[in-house]
């Protein structure tokens, strides 16, 4: 029996130690490989989104536009339309993926995604209200959306609190609140003088139509500020997977972690929602997909963000080019996400699931 573990006096490499080191190295290689592949896929998808559309432009034409040269046709189409649109797609997707996996991990349930429990619905309703009724600018809309997102998070958490928060109770209350907020969004839109389908689609399912740098900027800023804050809590979030008591016994400060993580995640989700509307199911799908491909090799935050970016880019590519009619991105992600939601609900009935 080997019970001595003083690290200074361990000359012999035991078979177990060799195996432990080997399996850790294998996990971290796999993680590096998966993240590398995801980054490559995001870059490729981003490039294709810039190239493909009504007119096809080559990579060299796009390169020249990015470098600031004037290319007939491409300067406007790529520079003014496709670049901000593809950038917004990648950034918003990253935010939705990060925000989604944060809630799913913290609440240890894939159904506890911010687009299922009402947080994006709240941000969306507030953004629609701020634009349609109050006529606010981009910054005002973002502030409004964040306030509403945090407000909904607090309300759902408080309503589901009874001797601690049970996951199922929180999810059911969240679904109810989401339904109320979605009808509030529909009502606000129906009251709008300039009622038009484009805007309705944006606030109900999410859309990248009419994306400009004015919308992309705040999302990029949010990611630069709140992303590192969230990532600084990655290990604590990772420990929360073991349950609150175990995590606390292993030195995680629960309240501090929860507050930091909720503020950062809601901020990311709200900024993204204020720019694109609640792109359906991206927050919900990214975490479980990332979990499946990363296979327990470390924190899910960055992989889920990359999966989210990839989902939105690919969904927009499909929505814009695959059919005779152009569909907003949220309709494509909705078609992808809804069957998975049904699958999870069926599986949860059989056994309580976690990420």
């Amino acid at each position, binding site marked *: *029996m080997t019970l*001595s573990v003083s690290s200074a006096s361990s000359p012999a490499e035991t078979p177990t130690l060799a195996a432990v080191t080997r399996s850790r190295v294998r996990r971290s290689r796999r993680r590096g490989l998966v993240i590398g592949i995801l980054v490559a896929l995001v870059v490729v998808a981003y490039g294709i989104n810039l190239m493909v559309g009504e007119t096809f432009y080559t990579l060299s034409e796009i390169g020249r536009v990015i470098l600031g040269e004037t290319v007939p046709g491409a300067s406007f189409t790529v520079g003014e339309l496709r670049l901000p649109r593809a950038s917004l797609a990648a950034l918003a997707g990253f935010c939705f993926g990060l925000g989604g996996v944060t809630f799913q991990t913290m609440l240890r349930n894939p159904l506890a995604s911010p687009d299922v429990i009402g947080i994006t619905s709240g941000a969306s309703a507030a953004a629609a209200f701020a634009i349609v009724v109050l006529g606010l600018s981009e910054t005002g809309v973002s502030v409004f959306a964040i306030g509403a997102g945090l407000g909904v998070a607090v309300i759902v958490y408080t309503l589901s609190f009874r001797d601690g928060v049970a996951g199922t109770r929180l999810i059911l209350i969240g679904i109810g609140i989401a339904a109320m907020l979605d009808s509030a969004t529909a009502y606000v839109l129906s009251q709008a003088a300039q009622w038009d389908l484009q805007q309705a689609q944006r606030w109900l399912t999410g859309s990248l139509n009419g994306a400009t740098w004015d919308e992309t900027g705040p999302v990029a800023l949010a990611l630069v500020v709140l992303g590192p804050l969230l990532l600084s809590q990655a290990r604590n979030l990772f420990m929360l997977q073991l349950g609150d008591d175990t995590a606390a016994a292993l030195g995680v400060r629960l309240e501090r972690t929860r507050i930091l993580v909720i503020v950062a995640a809601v901020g990311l989700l709200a900024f993204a929602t204020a720019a694109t509307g609640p792109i359906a199911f991206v927050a919900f799908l990214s975490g479980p997909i990332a979990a499946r491909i990363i296979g327990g090799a470390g924190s899910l935050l960055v992989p889920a963000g990359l999966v989210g970016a990839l989902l939105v880019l690919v969904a927009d590519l499909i929505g814009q080019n695959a059919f005779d009619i152009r569909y907003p991105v949220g309709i494509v992600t909705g078609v992808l996400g809804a069957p998975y939601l049904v699958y999870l609900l069926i599986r949860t009935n059989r056994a309580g699931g976690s*990420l």
Partner: protein
Amino acid sequence: MTATHSLSVESLQLGYGDRTVIESLDLLVPPGRITTIVGANACGKSTLLRSMSRLLAPRAGHVLLDGREVHRMPAKELARTLGLLPQSPIAPEGITVADLVGRGRNPHQRLLSRWSHADDEAVAAALDATHTADLADRSVDELSGGQRQRVWIAMALAQQTDLLLLDEPTTFLDVSHQVEVLDLLTDLNQTRGTTIVMVLHDLNMAARYTDHLIALADGKLYAAGEPAEVLTEDCVRAVFGLDSRVITDPTSDKPLMLPLGRHHVTSTPG
């Protein structure tokens, strides 16, 4: 590894909401020994263990580790000295044994620090000590109850604390696995001098494997001391409301409690 850490509780009051669970409790955990807390269901055993490990703030009184209030200590510093295995820890779906055991290293790691060789050594030693090395690459979901409990204990061992608190480590295990887990904890106590505090349901297992037995009744201390002093017929009646005979276990010379129910009692020895 030392056996010098002192853990004590002074006029501690604990509760949830408007319900008081522990009224006013004073305890001293003997360093380097195995202490077991017994009591009826809902008498505050688990609550006490959670408070001793900083998970539940006291309403009044103190939990002191080496004279310092545990609720004021930095979380990671405390977690390097005192570990807790909760009653039903959650294993994330698909996690491997090595990954789970490695999470026990959290209090030894800093924000951006890389995984170190010392971390690997601690994980390997924990796997060897709990005889789970051959399971290292298996998914925790696939393991039997006994294997899973050993893996959780391995995670707590990887934490390398001088004090280890366990909430019902033998629940849901069959008798051979109960003995296996308690033998393992005894090994740990004897070879490393780890101070162990656990909650157990089975009085006879507690009496056999414990140096110091604490009996709680209605949120108060009923008795504390060596099993032979504490586990008496009066104690069983006061703590569990059960008539019994307590004899000496011929295999261990520890007290053995025989419950007297309404049926099947044909003679009452002792």
